[in-house]
């Protein structure tokens, strides 16, 4: 396990990819935007980026309405 900051809170998560984190948290990929170390990562890249100790993530799940 590694420690990362997700939406401002420190959490212990598996040392995997962004895609694995999204899956482990049970988030719906089709509504989710991921910021990793202050850069938005498009969904096709989620499986290519491995998380490291101390990383900062923002996970935002959009809800509909405009």
């Amino acid at each position: 396990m590694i420690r990362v900051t997700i939406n401002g809170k420190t959490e212990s998560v598996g040392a995997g990819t962004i895609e694995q984190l999204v899956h482990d948290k049970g988030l719906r990929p089709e509504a989710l935007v991921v910021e990793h170390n202050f850069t938005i990562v498009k969904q096709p890249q989620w499986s290519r980026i491995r998380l490291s100790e101390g990383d900062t993530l923002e996970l935002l799940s959009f809800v509909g309405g405009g």
Partner: protein
Amino acid sequence: MKIGIAGTGGIGSNVALVLVRGGVRRLKLVDFDRVEAGNLNRQFFFYDQIGRTKVDALADNLKRIAPDLQLETIVLRLDEANMAATFHDCDAVVEGLDDHAAKKRLMEALAATGRPIVSASGVAGPDLDGIGTRRLGNGTIIGDFRTDADQALCFAPKVTIVAAMMAHILLEKGGYYERCQLE
């Protein structure tokens, strides 16, 4: 500053209204839809505009405030394939789309540009208490982040408050407040 409006419904039409009142004079309005009677409880349209395309009706309404507006109107359903190209010439983009997946796709499509994108998430229901602001990359997102339009109706107070907050972000970034002088 040229601002693109992706979706000119409850959010987009009201953001455009506040931007124009704030001094913005170049807008690109993009929406596929037509004005319906059910829109009039919150969207910046009038009864005699029912049936017209939203972008054309909105263009008319905004020009009544500022006849010198430079407007482009595009009747188009935005999708992953056309989003980046549609807004390539805009300095900033307002996201006012209905669908949660389309919101995500627009934010991802414009992330690489580094240009400001202001988005809405959670504008349905009557409750105003949870409205907040989050920032991801070049994006600012405003809403309560929880109330989906599938679960609750949209009403004028919340929609217009969120829209005004979104417009404020861009008026601030664009330096429009500094240009106004006390008389």
